């Protein structure tokens, strides 16, 4: 029993305030946009120079001058703004985003993140990942709690090439919500059906308790 990627995305979306400026990493994190709670409207930023863009257009209605960082077609909304790449990353590095939500290969209890490279093989590609982990007021990760092989993705120290040092503040996984505070994993929520011992066994560094641990909601989405 664990959360599906869609359910993880739903959980992460609950923490985004109305009017928050949000960057969602390419791929899985983009799902978060679908689950904004009623009455809230976040403003989404994409690295390639759009603030406040809307959903994908209907097939056949794409304008290829109007794409997001994943090179997928998007739309404009009332209040959209266009700008160049230096202004776009001024928003990122300058601390103007409220939250960036990214995927991960590994997250360390130090807040270190590895999400851009699985090693020296093949063609390396970094994109905006190293920029996004700096500057946003909150850098959150959404990820399965373990790898496909069952190994922990939450670890003491990353073994893969780092994207950033000490940058992640919260991790939403398929089993739990965990904050990173002072170099330690602090458990905030977990699936009621998963025991603390089991969760610890699936986690590569010590889970600390600090206040109550709430039940992680498994949304019907």
């Amino acid at each position, binding site marked *: 029993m664990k959360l599906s990627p869609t359910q993880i995305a739903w959980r992460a979306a609950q923490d985004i305030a109305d009017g928050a400026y949000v960057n969602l990493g390419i791929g899985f994190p983009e799902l978060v946009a679908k689950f904004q709670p009623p009455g809230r409207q976040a403003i989404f930023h994409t690295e390639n120079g759009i603030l406040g863009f809307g959903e994908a257009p209907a097939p056949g209605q794409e304008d290829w001058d109007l794409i997001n960082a994943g090179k997928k077609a998007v739309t404009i909304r009332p209040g959209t703004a266009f700008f160049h790449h230096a202004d776009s990353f001024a928003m990122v590095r300058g601390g*103007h985003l409220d939250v960036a939500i990214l995927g991960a290969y590994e997250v360390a209890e130090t807040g270190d993140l590895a999400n851009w490279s699985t090693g020296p093989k093949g063609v390396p590609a970094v994109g905006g990942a190293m920029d996004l982990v700096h500057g946003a007021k909150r850098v959150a990760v959404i990820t399965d709690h373990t790898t496909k092989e069952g190994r922990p993705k939450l670890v003491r120290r990353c073994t893969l090439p780092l994207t950033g040092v000490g940058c992640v503040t919260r991790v939403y996984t398929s089993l739990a919500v965990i904050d990173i505070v002072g170099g330690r994993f602090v458990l905030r929520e977990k699936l009621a059906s998963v025991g603390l011992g089991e969760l610890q066994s699936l986690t590569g560094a010590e889970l600390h308790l600090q206040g109550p641990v709430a039940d992680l909601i498994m949304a019907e989405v």
Partner: protein
Amino acid sequence: MDKTLPDLATAVAGTDDGMTVMIGGFGGAGAPIELIHALIDRFVATGHPRDLTVVNNNAGNGHVGLAALIEAGMVRKLICSFPRSADPVVFTQLYLAGGIELELVPQGTLAERIRAGGAGIPAFYTPTGYGTDLAQGKPVEVFDGRPYIRERWLRADVALVKAHLGDRLGNLTYRMAARNFNPLMCMAAARTIAQVGRIVAPGGIDPEAVVTPGIFVQGVVEVANPQQEEDLNRAGATYPETAA
């Protein structure tokens, strides 16, 4: 989300003692006269804010706007490039009497330091000022055989700017050369308040024409037909108005 503020008093309510305040404009163009005067009103009524560090290109002209802010005794330090004007008497007298601190910064370096503050760039190198008195104490580095000095970013607690159109999301346009430092200061302050000539509905500004995207703006207050410092000075105005 609605960043619209009901009035000028609300707009300047968050500016407190000891803060660094960036004020837009170059001379009178783009100077947020009404926001500045609202700040003076608050000081007159409450004694706060005071001991401000103000960042502006100039040091005010006559007895309105920034000059009036200085004259009211609210400014402890000024960071600017050119503290001279047609009528600089307020700053000049206070400075020569030792009543205000001055950090003189070359104009392009001032602009770049503010932009750097907004862009998360803590320091950069520039040729400007190398070998001059204004480079004293600054690290020097040679790149490709040419010497440069290192400058630090500038950030502020509050920016008070003047724009032309604004929407409730904070998107702004400017009017001609009233743009100047305003878009940069929007980026560099924790809290940016813009007075705009007109508030339009979201979408009322062409997405291509937005100069300051709303992410850089925390509050928008409408001031239709804003005053021009130049017109006020030609009319011999002072602020607060003195009894005749």
